[in-house]
């Protein structure tokens, strides 16, 4: 009698262990093979530029990017006659390539002062979450060297290097959530030639930029270039560059439309020599189009 009871209990317990529940299997899978240690944040911004300034994004490894930028004339300068500045539009184009996922190099030309430039961007931290140490921000170093090729009109003899100016930025950005990202960039611009002997060649500043995603493919962008030491130049009729824009993303292109008081698209010029004042209506309409091309595809 006792034997039968014990056998029944033994069989029942064996059976309950035998039928593993689906949930146990899933939980066991999670225990054995835990989720990936670290997830890196991607797409902090939709493109490599916020509006005028560079973002922490680079094209992926093996990918090249072509950017065309247009900057129309001032909206307060006979807008209907000039069709909102279309007739006096400036244009910039650039091509860059990422030989590594953290390195991007390129060259471009802006029609403002017929400026040629070469640039490089190096990303050295990536915002991440998960196990181990996580950087809270993505940071990159961006540098640009420009050569102005319009003739000098002051009657003096000039060295070739007088045409050159360089910019350096340390871009620090954080993607706070799926909608909002913000970037700060301490900036140094060096002008080889300045107007007077007492004028400083080095100008410092901090650039701020942000984007707010309105829909999956559309975002609102804004940026502000705050110059430090406005007394550095004897003759400084310039303002801080303030811009606001909209990004629209389609399959292979990003379209950026914006309003800004910066006339030029070449770095040293829009950073430190922005002529427009929003208060007076010196606002320029502009748009950028970016297109990526895959030169070296990853193996599938």
């Amino acid at each position, binding site marked *: 009698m006792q034997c039968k009871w014990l056998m029944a209990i033994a069989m029942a317990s064996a059976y309950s*262990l035998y039928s593993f529940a689906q949930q146990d299997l899933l939980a066991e*899978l999670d225990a054995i093979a835990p989720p990936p240690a670290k997830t890196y944040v991607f797409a902090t911004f939709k493109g490599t530029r916020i509006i005028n300034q560079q973002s922490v994004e680079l094209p992926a490894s093996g990918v090249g990017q072509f950017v065309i930028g247009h900057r129309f004339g001032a909206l307060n300068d006979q807008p209907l006659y000039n069709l909102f500045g279309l007739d006096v539009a400036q244009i910039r184009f650039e091509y860059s390539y990422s030989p590594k996922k953290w390195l991007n190099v390129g060259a471009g030309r802006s029609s403002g002062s017929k400026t040629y430039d070469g640039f490089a961007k190096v990303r050295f931290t990536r915002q991440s979450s998960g196990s181990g140490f996580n950087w809270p921000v993505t940071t990159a170093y961006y540098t640009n060297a420009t050569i102005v090729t319009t003739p000098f009109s002051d009657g003096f003899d000039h060295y070739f290097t007088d045409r050159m100016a360089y910019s350096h930025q340390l871009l620090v950005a954080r993607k706070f959530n799926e909608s909002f990202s913000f970037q700060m960039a301490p900036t140094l611009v060096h002008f080889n030639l300045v107007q007077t002997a007492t004028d400083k060649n080095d100008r410092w500043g901090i650039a701020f930029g942000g984007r707010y995603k309105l829909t999956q493919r559309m975002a609102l962008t804004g940026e502000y270039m705050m110059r430090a030491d406005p007394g550095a130049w004897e003759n400084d009729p310039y303002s801080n560059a303030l811009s606001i824009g909209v990004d629209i993303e389609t399959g292979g292109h990003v379209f950026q439309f914006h309003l800004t008081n910066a006339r030029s698209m070449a770095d040293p010029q829009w950073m430190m020599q922005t002529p427009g004042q929003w208060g007076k209506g010196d606002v320029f309409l502009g748009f950028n189009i970016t297109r990526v091309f895959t030169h070296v595809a990853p193996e599938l």
Partner: protein
Amino acid sequence: MKKFFLVAGVMFISWSSFAQKMISRDTYVHFYSATPVEDIEASLKDGIGLLNTVNNQFVFQLNIASFTFEKALMQEHFNENYMESSKYPKGIFKGTLAGNVDYNKAGRYSVTMKGQMTIHGRDREMAVPATVNVTREGLVEIESTFIVKPSDHDIVIPSLVANKIAKEIEVKVKSTLRAM
């Protein structure tokens, strides 16, 4: 008393041999979307699978962000706009394998894998045909090709690109499981 111990002893021994679980940490998954306008494909090699050979229950789990595309921008859009992989990082298929598979005998068996497929956070009951190949070394290879519809999992495809993404995506899975 002796009889009891004999029976209990036999039960214990046979109980410990019941739990035969097999695992794969490098399951290969490939998907292909074919339209007249554009072909899209991607694959990953780090899917995880667990199979209980006693009751034929299985679970396969993938990391959506592991799918590698030829074009990096496509991969970014896939994750950010379509799959929303920061919200739904995993794809899971769990269920029961139906078919007469003898895990102790090498050979190919045709089975049906029935269960729940969770993609983009949405579940769907699916029954997919599969081939189970039990090798002489005791490995279990499962291969299956089946169709997944983005619309079944609330994956929003805007009308602008609707003709570039197929309504039925062909998915191919190859998994080699070994005893844990």
